[in-house]
């Protein structure tokens, strides 16, 4: 099964990368951007039946740094996913 993990900086943690991109968007003339935060998306092919506990453990122990980051787990349905 395909799993998609979104790793993001926690609210309140300064994101200098997002701030720099926000600044660039502003200077390019795009209006109305309130805030930009940059995260990381990890796609994983894992054995069917891999438990939520196991995926969570992977996130907590390696994929995210729990001091500064949150994560969200999405199980991707291959039938509806565009190729």
């Amino acid at each position, binding site marked *: 099964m395909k799993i998609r993990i979104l790793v993001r900086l926690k609210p309140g*943690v*300064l994101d*200098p*990368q997002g701030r*720099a991109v926000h600044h660039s968007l502003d200077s390019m003339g795009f209006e109305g951007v309130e805030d930009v935060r940059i995260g990381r998306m990890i796609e994983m092919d894992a054995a069917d039946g891999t438990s939520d506990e196991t995926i969570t453990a992977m996130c907590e*122990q*390696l*994929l995210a*740094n729990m*001091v*500064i980051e949150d994560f969200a787990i999405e199980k991707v349905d291959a039938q509806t996913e565009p190729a």
Partner: protein
Amino acid sequence: MAFRAAVITFPGSNCDRDMAVALEALSGEPAIRVWHGDADLPDGLDFIALPGGFSYGDYLRSGAMAAKSPILRAVVAAAGRGVPVLGVCNGFQVLTESGLLPGALMRNAAQNFVCKTSELEVTSTASPFTRGFEAGQRLRIPVAHHDGNYFADDATLDALEGDGRIAFRYLDNPNGSRRDIAGVLSENGRVLGMMPHPERAIAPAAHPSMGGDDGRKLFENVIESLVAA
């Protein structure tokens, strides 16, 4: 006294040789070089150094992969027995990722790689690394990093300050670190992580702009602490 120091090398470490040279120059004993894939450390170590560099290409996050390598389990166990552990630059990142030190090192606030001589102030003298310094003593030690922006939440920072666990602060904060923190100690003071490179400051330079020998004392402090123990 034979000073047994180990320097751990990860794929992508690039200050491991400098660290080994500094340790040998100041202790008179060659440092033992240990590879990241080794499961065990040599017996009877007096000191472990995690060097600077870009372990595992900084993939995922700086220090994240190295913190999960086989040798780190042995380093964590040795730290638990009280063996002094020094992590410099990428080594500091490995120490926070491994949980031996609190907090995290994020991308520099200005987004750029900083490579310069930084001015530090010794904040705590209650550790084997800092015992020979005067509180408030100023040091000039080089920094060279992209991810040196120390972050921890306010409660953690308050606790670190209250417990005297800030080893060094920047006088010229080069990376946006919270509360100008340049180096952090473990609860028992025997693990130190710092972004500046003391191993690059062990010999007087031909010109002051090229650095100096302010890093020598940190290693001498550790060596003397073992004699005193």
